[in-house]
């Protein structure tokens, strides 16, 4: 018993050394790759962030109209998981700010993965317009949903939008994407009701 364990121990020390050596090599490979990624990231990170914010800015202007007095104020994260970012849109005239509406950057779960919509809301909480920020939906199927002819049907809607009732009808062949857009708009409207509306009235009272 004692002999066996001692012989096993002597084998395992050489094995241990080998394991340690291979592990060390793997660590070296990994650190080299990490250094490479660090350099590429330092070059591209700024460009990526710049592009993202430019895209959102452009979308806000398309939805809310190009008003030189318009101010865009990003609100801090308000704790809803489906809502990525919220922008408060005000009109500044003679240092008097008047609320135009909100733009909510939200994500939806489509057929080709997640896609991102920017939903513009009027001051009274109705939908002003929807713009697609990024998507990976299929050309010819899901992409048909993400065009103005479908998205503009949400304009003016305020609460509890359901697919198939009224003029909002799912695009045939693209039910998944149609449903995803509808539920995304609904979650934005819910978010307005539960969080933005309150914040707005609080501000007015204060």
């Amino acid at each position: 018993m004692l002999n066996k364990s001692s012989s096993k121990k002597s084998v395992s020390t050489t094995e241990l050394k080998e394991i340690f050596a291979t592990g060390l090599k793997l660590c070296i490979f990994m650190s080299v790759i990490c250094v490479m990624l660090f350099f590429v990231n330092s070059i591209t990170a700024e460009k990526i962030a710049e592009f993202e914010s430019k895209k959102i800015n452009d979308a806000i202007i398309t939805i809310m109209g190009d008003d030189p007095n318009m101010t865009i104020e990003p609100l801090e994260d308000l704790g809803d998981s489906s809502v990525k970012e919220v922008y408060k849109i005000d009109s500044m005239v003679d240092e008097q700010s008047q609320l135009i509406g909100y733009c909510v950057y939200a994500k939806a779960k489509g057929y080709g993965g997640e896609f991102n919509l920017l939903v513009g809301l009027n001051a009274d909480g109705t939908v002003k317009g929807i713009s697609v920020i990024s998507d990976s939906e299929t050309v010819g199927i899901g992409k048909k949903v993400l065009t103005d002819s479908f998205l503009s049907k949400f304009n003016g809607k305020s609460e509890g939008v359901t697919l198939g009732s009224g003029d909002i009808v799912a695009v045939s062949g693209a039910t998944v994407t149609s449903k995803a857009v509808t539920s995304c708009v609904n979650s934005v409207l819910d978010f307005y009701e539960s969080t933005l509306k309150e914040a707005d009235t609080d501000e007015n009272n204060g």
Partner: protein
Amino acid sequence: MKTTVKKNKVSLIGVLLDGIVFKNPVLIQLLGMCPILATSTSLENAFGMGVAVTFVLFFSNIIISLLRKIIPEKIRIAAYIIIIAGFVSVIDMILKAYLPSLSSSLGVFIPLIVVNCIIFARAESFASKNGVIPSAVDGIACGIGFTIALSIVSAIREILGNGTILGFHIFGESFQPATMMLLPFGGFLTLGFVIALVQFVTDKIGKGGNK
């Protein structure tokens, strides 16, 4: 043993032709079926995907070939994954920064290049046994082979399924396309026909050469 030594002295043109035509990773070896079916719904996506895969293949082949004597046998797969994942992250960041619309339409398939079996197959069967220059040529050749196969399949699917090519309507706006070609089913169908055609042609060429 001698044959392997001989094999190491492969002609670069042979490697190039093998990768693009005679041992085309998709149409002959039937590797990388998943990205072929998933990213071939439009020619633009397909071309972007092909270029991204070629980039990763080229650099991972070079690095793996350089390190082929250092990488321990036991952990070679882990080492390959690290190297390939590194280059995939690089191309992912570059696409996001400079071609953001392509990056967003390819979505998850760019990160998934990490587990693309073409890149693994080339690392394991070629780059780990050959010098740097043949490996680099092999990487480019297989990448071009992949891109060509993907472009053929996607061009057919985009024309028949959406009536467009690179976004331009070729039959006029009123053309009613066969949406089924854009479904996974249409992808299998197209790929099957393309493979059958390629097999037929290479078979003819092979027989003619023998006679």
